[in-house]
């Protein structure tokens, strides 16, 4: 019984650690105000981007060249690109959550289940960003395509939910003023 509770506590702590890692992934982009505003203002990543960065197609091509120097360069460069994407995704999720919190403060009829659902998705995304960040730094992005695509889909869903929530709150506020 004690062993089981230790395992559960361990898993919770691990997930918490990964969520914090995911939360902190954006810190490199937040170091300068211009980088943050750039990341906010920039258009979202195209769908094909994740497939390109995390796919093995380019890696197979590079491996076929049989040149160690180029293989090393490829691994280094792809790691850099993948980490920029993770940091950007983490930053965008944090932005969506901040905006959601602001909109929720102005809303009078919050739905408990919707709020819990959004919070759960946010936490899952932070854990996934943490896992991606650690795994990319340790081994590069080549085996993480599935997880990255999941993070991309979920972050898009969270952003859409937040946008529609914000629009509904604004419409209600405007209705009250009128």
């Amino acid at each position, binding site marked *: 019984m004690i062993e089981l509770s230790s395992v559960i506590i361990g898993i919770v702590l691990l997930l918490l650690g990964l969520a914090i890692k995911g939360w902190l992934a954006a810190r490199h982009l937040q170091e300068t105000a211009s980088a943050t505003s750039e990341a906010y203002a920039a258009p979202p990543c195209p769908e094909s981007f994740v497939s390109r*960065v995390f796919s093995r197609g380019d890696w197979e*091509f590079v491996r076929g060249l049989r040149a160690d120097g180029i293989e090393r360069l490829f691994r280094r460069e792809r790691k850099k690109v993948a980490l920029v994407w993770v940091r950007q995704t983490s930053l965008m999720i944090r932005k969506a959550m901040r905006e959601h919190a602001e909109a929720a403060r102005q809303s009078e009829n919050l739905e408990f289940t919707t709020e819990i659902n959004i919070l759960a998705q946010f936490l899952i995304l932070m854990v996934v960003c943490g896992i991606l960040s650690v795994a990319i730094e340790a081994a590069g992005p080549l085996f993480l395509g599935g997880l990255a695509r999941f993070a991309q889909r979920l972050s898009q869903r969270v952003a859409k939910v937040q946008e529609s929530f914000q629009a509904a709150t604004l419409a209600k506020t405007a209705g009250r003023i009128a």
Partner: protein
Amino acid sequence: MAVPDRIVAVEQAYDDLLRRSLSKIEGDLARLIYLASTRDYNTGKYHHDGLAARFQEEIAGQALELAHREIFGRIAACSLEELVDQVEIYVSSSRQSREEVLQVWQKLEPYRVALPVDVNMAVAQLFVSNIKLALAILRHRYQREELAASRS
């Protein structure tokens, strides 16, 4: 000019740009470099004498920006193998020796100015990384060719 008229005018200018200028340039990378060169470094505004004479200055600028973004999107999305081919076309079309072009591109990284304004940060990083890799791959390929030629 009303918004729908402006959109039509930009589309016409864009078609004109494709037909008269871009179709004569071989390869998307060369087209990208050409379009980036029509942008003022200080203001970020695009200018093309011929296009501005046929259309308004502002319309011509918007058409150039549109073409720049579109071609950049195509290059950023292509595979590394396709990009190596693009860089090879560009290097081969230059008047300088291909080794010289490769060396200068690796040192000065002039392709960084080919990024459109407000491009997604991760996509920009992928573009720069892929060009860096394509240059290294081409250099490696040329060195192998030279070695093979000297042996035979």
